[in-house]
């Protein structure tokens, strides 16, 4: 492969193909549309299916159905469409159907400002659907990482049988950077393996690692799929002796694998008393501020979160213990700051927020360091 100048959204499209995605259903919406554009062109060439649906509710339903039929599947949207997808995201979470949902965040609420960036869907990604449920959300900081984390999203979706939200933003989605993509043939994502014969198969078995293998329909393995509370075969149940272990399993399965799921990068400096914490496009502003501060002789740490959900508590807690102040920079009015405050304590946290469609600047972060 050669160096190409590529948009973040294009990189997500290629990442999906490299990860083995063979089904995409979606409804175009700025600033995510390039993902649908590239997959409408490239997915059929890779032997996959692209369907433009009537809306985002149907798109989400279609990718769930496609995965049950055996194809790794994805959809992409932005805030308003992400809101519409929430009911079926809950369905995928409770029915434990792997799928990837890309949310290229734009300024909201409501129609907001379609072409302006934001990081306002952080809490929607975690709690947008009702009820307690497992979910993973990943946030890339560059075009190359948009490609890599799309592959990771597919891998985690399969490995943990859960929807994974690729929570990117308009800045990363639309920016172009030079990238050299790896050879796709060497890229593998998790594949389910079943050992038991069809008559013994339970699609929702309470396994020790919390993740029973999923066999697609059409291979002789029978199970029921429902949004109702269900037993190990998937049939609705009201028996507490069936409901309790199942609820326990699905709501702790990610906890058992947190070390593999919680992706962060720390740039630590001996003796630093101030720590910057950021994610997505704003992490780029934080890194810029870090370099300016260090060039002035100040000591400062930087923790970049690539996994937002489940929240990387252990890493953030350790980070918070090393410094006196944690400056959390994000393009919303402090959504992830809530989590950081919960983990490191409110008094340590300084919020740098912006929710008007403009990026947080390095200067805003430098000002917070001095304040």
């Amino acid at each position, binding site marked *: 492969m050669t160096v190409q100048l590529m948009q973040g959204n294009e990189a997500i499209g290629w990442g999906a193909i490299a990860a083995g995605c063979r089904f995409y259903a979606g409804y175009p919406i700025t600033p995510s549309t390039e993902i649908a554009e590239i997959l409408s062109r490239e997915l059929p060439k890779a032997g996959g299916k692209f369907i433009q649906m009537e809306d985002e509710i149907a798109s989400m339903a279609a990718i769930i159905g496609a995965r049950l039929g055996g194809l790794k599947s994805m959809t992409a949207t932005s805030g308003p469409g992400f809101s519409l997808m929430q009911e079926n995201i809950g369905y995928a979470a409770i029915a434990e159907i792997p799928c990837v949902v890309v949310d290229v965040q734009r300024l909201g609420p409501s129609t907001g400002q379609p*072409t*302006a960036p934001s990081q306002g869907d952080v809490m929607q990604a975690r709690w947008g659907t009702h009820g307690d449920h497992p979910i993973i959300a990943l946030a890339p900081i560059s075009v190359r990482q948009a490609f890599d984390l799309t592959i990771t999203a597919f891998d985690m979706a399969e490995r943990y049988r859960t929807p994974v939200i690729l929570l990117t933003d308009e800045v990363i989605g639309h920016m*172009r*950077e030079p990238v050299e993509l790896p050879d796709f043939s060497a890229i593998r994502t998790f594949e389910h393996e079943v050992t038991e014969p069809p008559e013994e198969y339970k699609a929702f078995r309470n396994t020790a690692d919390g993740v029973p293998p999923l066999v697609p329909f059409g291979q002789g393995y029978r199970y029921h799929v429902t949004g109702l509370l269900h037993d190990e075969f998937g049939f609705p149940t009201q028996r507490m002796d069936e409901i309790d272990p199942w609820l326990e399993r699905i709501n702790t399965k990610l906890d058992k694998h947190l070390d593999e799921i919680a992706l962060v990068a720390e740039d630590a400096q001996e003796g630093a008393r101030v720590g910057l914490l950021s994610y997505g496009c704003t992490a780029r502003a934080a*890194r810029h501020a870090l370099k300016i501060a260090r060039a002035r002789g100040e000591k400062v740490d930087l923790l970049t979160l690539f996994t937002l959900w489940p929240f990387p508590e252990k890493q953030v807690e350790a980070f918070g213990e090393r410094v006196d102040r944690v400056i959390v920079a994000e393009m919303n009015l402090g959504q992830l700051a809530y989590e950081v405050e919960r983990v490191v304590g409110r008094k340590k946290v300084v919020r740098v927020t912006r929710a008007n469609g403009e*990026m947080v600047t*390095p200067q805003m972060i430098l000002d917070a360091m001095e304040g």
Partner: protein
Amino acid sequence: MTDALADRTEIRLAGEGGQGMILAGIILAEAASIYAGKNVVQSQSYGPEARGGASKSEVIISNGEIDHPEVIEADVLVALSREAYHKFHKEVKPDGLLIVDADKVKEADDKAIRIPITHLAFETTGRQITANTVALGVLVGLTGIVSRQDIEKAVAARAPRGTEEMNRKALEAGFAAAAAVKR
């Protein structure tokens, strides 16, 4: 690390939607990355309209890592419309370069380099739409941010089939206008 921040050239190309400033930014970014082997970040912003409205494209070029992906204070601003000039001319470094379309931005301040970019495009190719390519010739001619050879390759690679010669001439007109300013 100080060097990494110093080695950062911020270029902003602004005009009305439809003038091709976003494409010009992409071509410059391709010249700097694919052909010159540097690191770049190219971004754009535009309104919801298909045409008209303010449109800007940004290109940051460095030999090192580029962190903040947007222009903080431009080293170069090219403004092809009044609105673009008024919106962005204050965000240019004191020693930065300000290039305006002389016919469209008559009120530009004294340090601006005035070149009738759109007029030159029409005069050279018979089509105003090549103004973005003329602007690239002016920009590269005045700054040398990429080599002439690299911008020529990048323009040729992006020119729709059948328009290669027209775009080559437009680029050349931009370089000639830049050379005249330098003299």
